């Protein structure tokens, strides 16, 4: 059996699909962005004015903290209030094969599908920091499509994956009572980016103690913006979900009133430019096969690794001509 060749839609067709709110058009558009399709930029340009209406909430935290379960219940909470949500869930790509196993749908309540929720699983495609390079643009597309709530769920992160900040209005850090000792080590990084801290699995012992520990760390925090709240919940049992949702809404209100939201959104745009620029440059460097060849040859000649890197960097900089006038 041969497949009918897939007719790639035009930009105009996709825009029409957005106007008619056809899910297939949104799904295809996100693939365009992920795959770096030729007309992805043109599509995003056309939709740019329609963005900026959605609230973007990020869920991040260590693997197994309950990010998927929590995003699931939040999506349902908002759906019941009449705010349809789009969920973008990022999982890691294998650094060796580029393949990925995206399992967020396994934990999803299937009733969500009937509530008009959009769920998209993304592989990070080698991008560090908890997200893929295309995640921000994918959120823009969901925004332009008309979803009032967008949840970005990161790869399970350790301490320093803070790119979530570059993509959302409110970054929620999800921890569990088991995260206890790790919190001390996390004083930098993750603890600095959170706008709201959720101690999930609060049905297990130690949740209140962890809450107090986080609060005492936050007391010393130097990052700008209003002081984050710490709430406990059990996403699986459904306890405290309302508290989390209300805390997110309270945070939005505080951020809006203090003017911090605007600052955040400007920072976000800049951080995104930086990420894309760096990611693009990295891909560009390694797309030239001779780069690795040169490195190997220099190593074989007995040169020092740091010196080789400095030499190659010089060559790259000359080529892209970013040196000052």
């Amino acid at each position, binding site marked *: 059996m041969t497949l009918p060749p897939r007719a790639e839609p035009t930009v105009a067709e996709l825009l029409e699909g957005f106007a008619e709110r056809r899910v297939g058009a949104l799904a295809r558009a996100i693939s365009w962005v992920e795959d770096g399709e030729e007309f992805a930029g043109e599509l995003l340009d056309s939709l740019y004015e329609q963005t900026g209406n959605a609230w973007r909430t990020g869920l991040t935290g260590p693997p197994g903290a309950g990010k998927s379960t929590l995003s699931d219940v939040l999506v349902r909470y908002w759906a019941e209030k009449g705010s349809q949500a789009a969920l973008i869930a990022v999982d890691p790509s294998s650094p060796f094969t580029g*393949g990925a196993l995206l399992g967020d749908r396994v934990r999803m309540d299937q009733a969500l599908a009937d509530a008009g929720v959009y769920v998209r699983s993304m592989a990070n495609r080698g991008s560090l920091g908890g997200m893929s390079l*295309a995640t921000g643009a994918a959120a823009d597309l969901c925004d332009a499509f008309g979803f009032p709530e967008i949840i970005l769920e990161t790869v399970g992160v350790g301490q320093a994956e803070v790119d979530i900040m570059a993509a959302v209005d409110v970054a929620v850090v999800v921890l569990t009572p088991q995260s206890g000792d790790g919190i001390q080590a996390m004083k930098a990084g993750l603890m600095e980016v959170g706008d709201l801290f959720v101690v999930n699995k609060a049905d297990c012992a130690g949740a209140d103690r962890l809450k107090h520990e986080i609060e005492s760390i936050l007391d010393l925090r130097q990052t700008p913006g209003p002081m984050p709240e710490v709430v406990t919940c059990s996403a699986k049992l459904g306890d405290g979900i309302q508290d989390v949702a209300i805390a997110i809404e309270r945070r939005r209100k505080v951020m809006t009133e203090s003017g911090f939201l605007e600052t955040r959104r400007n920072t976000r745009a800049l951080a995104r430019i930086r990420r894309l620029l760096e990611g693009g440059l990295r891909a560009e460097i390694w797309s030239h096969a001779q780069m690795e060849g040169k490195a190997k040859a220099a190593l074989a000649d007995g040169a020092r690794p740091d010196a080789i890197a400095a030499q190659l960097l010089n060559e790259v900089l000359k080529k892209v001509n970013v040196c000052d006038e």
Partner: protein
Amino acid sequence: MSKRLRILVAKPGLDGHDRGAKVVAASLRDRGFEVIYTGLHRTPIQIVDAAEQEDVDVIGLSILSGSHMELLPRVRRLLVERGLDHVLLVAGGIIPVADAVVLETDGYAKIFGPGTATGAIADYLEAQFAS
């Protein structure tokens, strides 16, 4: 960023055995596919919804319950109704040869029966998208 093949691995109907689906999902990941696994007990509508939202190139259905002649054609019909007939449709599990022949004449590109070598599925899919 370059194109990666995306495949939805799904378990339709009342069938609680997903070791096979998980082995296949892992092997496809190891061959460079982006594999989205649905989890157990999905209805044909849920599977087609997921395929549409995820914009997949392939759907692989794993079914061991015996109700393949009921559920598999239904997935195929829904795909056509949604205009998603460009998605390559394959299935595997306990499917008798006579049934496999019927399915392969009606929208299924390939049925992989018991005893299929793990790598054979990835080989097949790569060949389909080689051009």
